[in-house]
């Protein structure tokens, strides 16, 4: 059969009509299925193998540096007194932050009836899960005695001891753990109908078997759809407070302490904003590449990307506001330690990191005030990467606040060791390995949901409409 005729993007008018038209290139139901499913069925492109090998290599570095860490001890990192937390925690917060976009898009935008989410939510959710996976490794490995880390769980034991539920770290364990679990459930529920699609398109017994098992015998029954949609709605409903709470609780790791520069009430909202900020940036980075490679141009249109850039602009500015507010409050509090901490951030030994953060997070997104920039692929690609660099540095700057606290006698300066760096790079290996597997074997776009928002999907979408017409044409073609 003929491949769907995709009109080059440039020719597409961005009229009001097109605006609400979420799917371009005049695709019909079957074409949507084709576009999304094909990448998982075609012979694997060499490029994928190359990328995958690369990712695996980096993942190897990750594994190696973790093994060495367990063998030698946390001393191989740059940690010291007074800086007891280094890159491990920075990376943790960085990855958790990135892990926010997915659930946000799926849940919050769903509740706000933002139909445009349908073509990116699957993708974003996957990214969320993989990011959370990366995040979760760090708190695990950064403890001094990994083999006893399980004491953080309230398990009955012969010591008669229980964890300390007042510790933000313990809150983290539960919050991030819950978040990871819920994200996976949410993602899987969304996948069920599409897995069924893949099952039904299966050419080999193996595929039919695997996708068959995974799709739980889904048969598109209307009676199922009723519960299914309810479940989806509820999941969206409970994920929304969850996604907001997770980074709130992560921010408590700092905010609940007494360390000047950490002990501030602004942290929760500011962290959440930052998380969405970095999350969306990462989605843009990946999407820009993926739609190019897999030809999702008609499903993930410039309009989608522009909408995300708007959110990046918004959250970026929010974060900028938070930076400013921190300073004001520090001064306004009249607490000399607090005030010093912030002056020290901007002009102390770590000023360089601070200004990288400011320029990447506050200045760079401002370009998105201009529509041209918002709609320019290269610009948004570059900016989204800047934002992620900036957000990593934000966490770095925050963590490094430790280096000068109350007693000048105990001030110090933290330098990462080669192992800090390798571990961080390595975590990208884990992320991309999982991501490439996802792109290869699972539908990267929510097929059923996209179909649901196409005009043809509406029963009252009258007869003789172009959906039908084009169908007839197809018939002619054979």
């Amino acid at each position, binding site marked *: 059969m003929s491949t769907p005729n995709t009109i080059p993007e440039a020719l597409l008018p961005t009229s009001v009509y097109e605006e609400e038209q979420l799917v371009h290139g005049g695709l019909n139901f079957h074409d949507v299925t084709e576009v999304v499913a094909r990448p998982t069925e075609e012979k694997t492109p060499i490029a994928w193998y190359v990328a995958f090998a690369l990712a695996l290599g980096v993942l190897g570095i990750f594994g190696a540096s973790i093994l060495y860490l367990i063998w030698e001890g946390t001393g191989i990192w*740059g940690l010291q007194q007074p800086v007891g937390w280094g890159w491990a925690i920075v990376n943790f917060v960085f990855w958790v932050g990135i892990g926010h976009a997915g659930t946000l898009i799926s849940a919050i935008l769903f509740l706000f009836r933002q139909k445009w989410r349908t073509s990116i939510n699957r993708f974003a959710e996957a990214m969320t899960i993989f990011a959370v996976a990366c995040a979760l490794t760090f708190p695990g490995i950064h*403890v001094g005695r990994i083999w006893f880390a399980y004491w953080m769980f309230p398990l009955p034991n012969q010591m008669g*001891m229980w964890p300390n539920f007042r510790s933000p770290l313990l809150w983290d364990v539960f919050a991030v753990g819950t978040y990871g679990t819920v994200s996976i459930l949410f993602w899987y529920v969304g996948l069920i109908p599409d897995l069924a699609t893949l099952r039904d398109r299966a050419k080999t017994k193996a595929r039919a078997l695997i996708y068959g098992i995974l799709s739980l015998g889904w048969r598109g029954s209307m009676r199922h759809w009723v519960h299914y949609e309810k479940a989806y709605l509820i999941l969206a409903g409970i994920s929304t407070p969850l996604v907001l709470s997770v980074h709130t609780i992560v921010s408590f790791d700092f905010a609940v302490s007494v360390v000047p520069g950490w002990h501030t009430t602004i942290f929760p909202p500011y962290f959440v904003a930052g998380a969405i900020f970095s999350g969306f940036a990462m989605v843009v980075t990946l999407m820009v590449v993926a739609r190019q490679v897999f030809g999702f141009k008609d499903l993930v249109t410039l309009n989608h990307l522009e909408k995300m850039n708007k959110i990046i602009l918004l959250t970026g500015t929010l974060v900028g506001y938070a930076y400013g507010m921190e300073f004001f409050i520090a001064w306004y509090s009249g607490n000399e330690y607090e005030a010093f901490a912030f002056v020290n951030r901007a002009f102390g030994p770590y000023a360089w990191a601070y200004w990288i953060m400011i320029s990447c997070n506050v200045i760079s997104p401002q370009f998105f005030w201009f529509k041209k920039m918002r709609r320019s692929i290269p610009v948004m690609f570059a900016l989204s990467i800047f934002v992620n660099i900036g957000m990593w540095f934000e966490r770095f700057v925050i963590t490094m606040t430790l280096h000068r606290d109350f007693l000048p*006698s105990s001030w110090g300066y933290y330098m990462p060791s080669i192992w800090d760096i390798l571990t961080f790079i390595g975590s990208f290996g884990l992320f991309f390995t999982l991501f490439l597997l996802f792109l290869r074997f699972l539908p990267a776009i929510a097929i059923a949901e996209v179909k649901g928002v196409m005009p043809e999907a509406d029963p009252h979408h009258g007869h003789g409409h172009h959906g039908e017409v084009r169908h007839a044409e197809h018939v002619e073609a054979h």
Partner: protein
Amino acid sequence: MSQNHNENRSELLPIEENGKTYWRSLDHVAGTSEFRDFVAREFPEGASELNDPVSRRSFMSLMGASLALAGLGTGCVRRPEEKILPYVRRPEDLVPGLPQFYATTMAVSDMVTGLVVEAHEGRPTKIEGNRLHPASRGGACTFEQAAVLSLYDPDRTVRVFQDRVEKSWADFDAYLDGLLQKFRGNGGNGLVIVSESSASPTFARLRRQLTEALPQARFFQWEPVSNERVLAGTRLAFGQPLEPVYRLERADVIVAVDADLFGSGPFHLRYSRDWASRRAPDAPGGMNRLYAVEPVFTVTGASADHRLRVRSSQIGPFLRALAAELQGQGVAIPAGIAQAGQGAWQKFVQALARDLAAKRGRSLVAVGRFQAPEVQAIAWAINDALGNLGETVRFAQPADVPAIAPTEAIRQATALLDGGNVDTLVVLGGNPVYDAPADVPFAAAMQKAKNRIHLTQAPNETSALAQWVLPETHFLEEWGDAVALDGTWSLVQPLIRPIWDGRSKIELLARLAGSQQTKGYDLVRATFLENQGSEADWRKALHDGVVDGTSRRWVEATLDAGSAAGAAGRLAAPKDGLELVFLVDNKVYDGRFANNGWLQELPEPTTKLTWTNAALMGPALAEKLGVKSGEMVRLEVGGRSVDAGVWVQPGTADDTIAIALGYGRTFAGRVGNNRGFNVYPLRTAEGAWTATGASATKIAGTALLAATQDHHSMEGRPLVREANLRDYEQNPYFAREMVQHPPLVALWKQHEYTGQQWGMAIDLNSCVGCNGCMVACQAENNIPIVGPEQTRMGREMHWIRLDRYFASANAADPTDLTDAEVVFQPVTCMQCENAPCENVCPVAATVHSKDGGLNDMVYNRCIGTRYCSNNCPYKVRRFNFFDWHTKGTGTGGNPLTDVEKMKFNPDVTVRTRGVMEKCTYCVQRINAAKRDAKVSGLEKVPDGAITPACAQTCPTEAIVFGDVNDPNSRVSKLKKQPRNYEMLAEFNTKPRTSYLARIRNPNPELVS
């Protein structure tokens, strides 16, 4: 000359076998059955510990592993099998598991200190001062406390060696008898003995015995750091060599002129205590006033009310100027002493003179031991004129002054050796090859002797040139005796059988002297019985450690004005230009403690440098030379040169570079080799302490200078709170009012703390920053050594630290540190009632104890998130980033050997990698006291029954510990004082440790 001096040394390097010189064969020895046998014989319980895979002393990491096994193992998991080796015949009054205490004495050259040593199943583990001993009064300085580590030093001489081959004592005795036969024949002609100095009467007795037996034999005593100039000074002033002993408790005004009264030298512990006794603003007799006049910061200068930077060579002129001013005040200074000075110090001198003149008989001008005898004489003249002699200073007949002063002695010995007709050279301890004056080529000369014998605790540079290297006993292994500065006679008794079958100096000396007795015990006892009396006294002396009423009869000293004036006249006019000052190091002394990790890792009190010395210079000079801290300079004196790292030290005199002796050892051992820079090659006999006409030039390269404190300003924060006496009297509560904060109310109901609740008060007024508490803590709590690299990363493990802050003395420009004021603040865990660290620990590894109210740290529960440390406002928590003991970063990369493990205190868990640790107020001592109270049926632990290691050893008793719920306990009384304040209390952490603000007592005339 130093060049070839060095060359000989390098060509004489013994062959290195895998980085260990041949005789450092411990690592295999320690593994051998032989060593285990020794251990088994000496203390079976210890043996079981050593052999046993999971013992307290073989770290928790192993426990962790075995637990893990239990987790993984199959159904029937058993712990690894442990052995118990009971005694065959248990010693009397030994209760396994309970420590025993014995009195003994340690002498570091002429520093004699009475000690009480704690032993566990026969292993000495902790050294404390002996309250009965005048030089100690219960305090102990860093050297003495760290000595226990040297006992277990694996780099000690573990065998008799001849030409680097293992031999036995039998072999040596045979050899020696051969030699002695010859010498008995020729009256000892050709026999030269070079010994380090000794304060032991028995040693002196045997020395006399030797010279009688072999009149031709020559006996020399060399000591790089000695009191020879003091004796020379008193000889000039009073016509006879005398030992001055100060009585600071009687002095209202004390002037320390280049004298480190509290830092080092005999009686420095005693002096600290006496000074502190008059330090409290409400002290009986009023608060004393301390002036310090010195070229570079010492702890004494740091504690002074006024400090004047004066170049070492200017000290003489300064004193003469002072004398002149005193004359002006009507003080009868003998003629020829005074000489009106000109210089920046006039204002200071005038004020000082008025102060002194007003306090005749109640003042003291103390001159450093290393100033020229002439300078000392001037000081005595001044003191005499002020009527201080007999009042604030007394003179004692020196124990037994060797006919020849050390410097002269080493000169003569070298000359003799150089002459080439020395048949046998016996070096008793010491290390002349390393520390002989630069212009005395001992190393070269030594090799001209046919037979060279070195008795030494650890092989060193001198042993490298000897044929016979003999293991010398450590003072904890030997019998001996010593006489303190004031003549107090005390005994040295062994706490452990010689680990390496060594012999003491007196034992070898006895053989040389051909004495019948050769056992230390007999020798010492003989001396005692002939001088001090009966068997009963002997037993009492053993128990007390000191012999009552032996402090020497005091001598009336009358000034020989003429000779003093003559001396003053002889004072050379000070030269301009750069001058070099050599310092006795507070850590390695003259180099003998270089292989002691505890001392190496100790931060030098005023620079906070560890593991190294450095060329200390003021900011101005540094600028002139264009160097910064950590860069290198080449120091040159009289054609000899040494390269050293630079450390910019505030308060250093102009054009002065001060650098400590004792570093750059090449044969110290795994810990001490090549740490810092050896400046002996610059140190001549004449310029032993001050070398004028020196030069310094910047050279390429950087030095590994690991300081434990990188930031030296208090940033105007109210951490250390101080005031002048006058302001204090106007407002005693100034310290509490320094921080304004709203009333501290908690959001929730606070816990009730009933029963005995522990707390601590630290008096910043009497803390002199001597570091005693740090070593005490390290020894008591099994604190590991991490080495210079890790220290520089900020990973040092000390539970208690001494924060040192500089403040500019220049009101106009606070950044100008040419003249600086120093404050010390001991900081350790505050045991906060609302401890921030506790909240954040996810596994409840640090929680509060209800009885005692301690901030418990449970090592075996800790998983090492380091969150508690981040959240500790006082940053007193320490993390085991590695398994320091097995990784051995502090011992040249060598894992701890079995013999080293014997130093551990079995009452404290040895922490493993990945665990947080911190001060617990020595909870093991608290529990021990509680146990004793319980067993003896008491309800409460009496006040004073518990003293944490730091408080116990503090020479000035600045740290007081006790029950804060008992209004009559010492600590409660201190906390009631107006000076009492809690650091960072505004955060409502409710610290149990509080500080007493520091009060300065400046001369009103000098307060601007």
